[in-house]
């Protein structure tokens, strides 16, 4: 099976946002081969990553069920959501908080394909600066 290509892009091409900003973007799915796509999911999520239990929160979710025409999937699909006040992106030693746009393509056979585009929300260092001083 050929590996599908999922290309996610954000309309303003920046990768750092503030709470309340509107995140607008689109994705294109290409190189699908003969496998039948049964569903396509797009989401805007935050997740924790680190050495302990990991958590996930969903800010935006959209699932479109097939069957799809290949050409239909190659057309850009748009999404938009208003970003919340928290959690801010954070890179720590024990834990990271990351925001991402995630697109998942589900096939008739069990395989699924996922692509993530990370972006940042807020600026933790500015808050820490305010607190310390």
């Amino acid at each position, binding site marked *: 099976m050929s590996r599908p290509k999922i290309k996610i892009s954000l309309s303003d091409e920046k990768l750092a946002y503030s709470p309340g900003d509107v995140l607008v973007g689109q994705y294109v799915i290409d190189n699908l081969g003969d496998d039948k796509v049964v569903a396509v999911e797009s989401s805007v999520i935050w997740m924790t*990553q*680190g*050495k*302990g239990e*990991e958590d996930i929160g969903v800010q935006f979710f959209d699932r479109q069920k097939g069957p799809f025409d290949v050409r239909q999937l190659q057309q850009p699909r748009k999404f938009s959501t208003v970003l919340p006040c928290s959690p801010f992106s954070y*890179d720590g*030693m024990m834990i990271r908080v990351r925001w991402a746009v995630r697109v998942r393509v589900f096939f008739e056979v069990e395989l699924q394909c996922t692509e993530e585009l*990370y972006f940042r929300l807020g600026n933790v260092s500015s808050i820490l600066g305010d607190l310390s001083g």
Partner: protein
Amino acid sequence: MQRIDENPFATRFTRPGYRFVEPDDTSGVESLAVRFLRDGQCGQIVGPHGCGKTSLVYAMTRSLQTAFREIQFLVIRRQGWLGFRSEKIAGLHGSGDSDLLVVDGVETLSPIQRWCLVGSCRYRNCGLLLTSHQELLGVPILKKLMPSFSHFEQIVEHLTRSEHATVQSSSVREAYDRNDGNYREGLMFLYDEFQQQLLATTG
């Protein structure tokens, strides 16, 4: 050059069920699953802390999915007799014919609880797959896992290859030796080391 932005030792890549790297000496997950089905659908994986028992069991259940109607996982943490209720021993309410109950950490149960667990599954004709630090009498041993440095190296190589990261071989040795062959702790040691580098490079 591709920028490394992921720690390959984070839980998302090392948690049981994400990926199982077979040691060179295993006869293969598939053949273990076949043996389990052939030998009365009852068996145990034995080995010390953090040597990959749970990861192996998760890998096996992927191969066993078609043979059972439902697979239920029961992870046992340390708890007293009162904390472990009889319906849990019975393999949760829904278990019965054509089901498989996977019990992780069975050594924390008392001998009576273990006996009830095995007996209940036999009575219900429910498959039983266990992980344990010590051998449990009356349950066939499917695999005894023993940690080895070469297997730990294989796991590290696998994780770093898929995340396009590199780690010094001296760090891998130190991670293994410092943690007495406990893979889980060894990977956490490497997580810390890698994360320091990551934070230093990303500022």
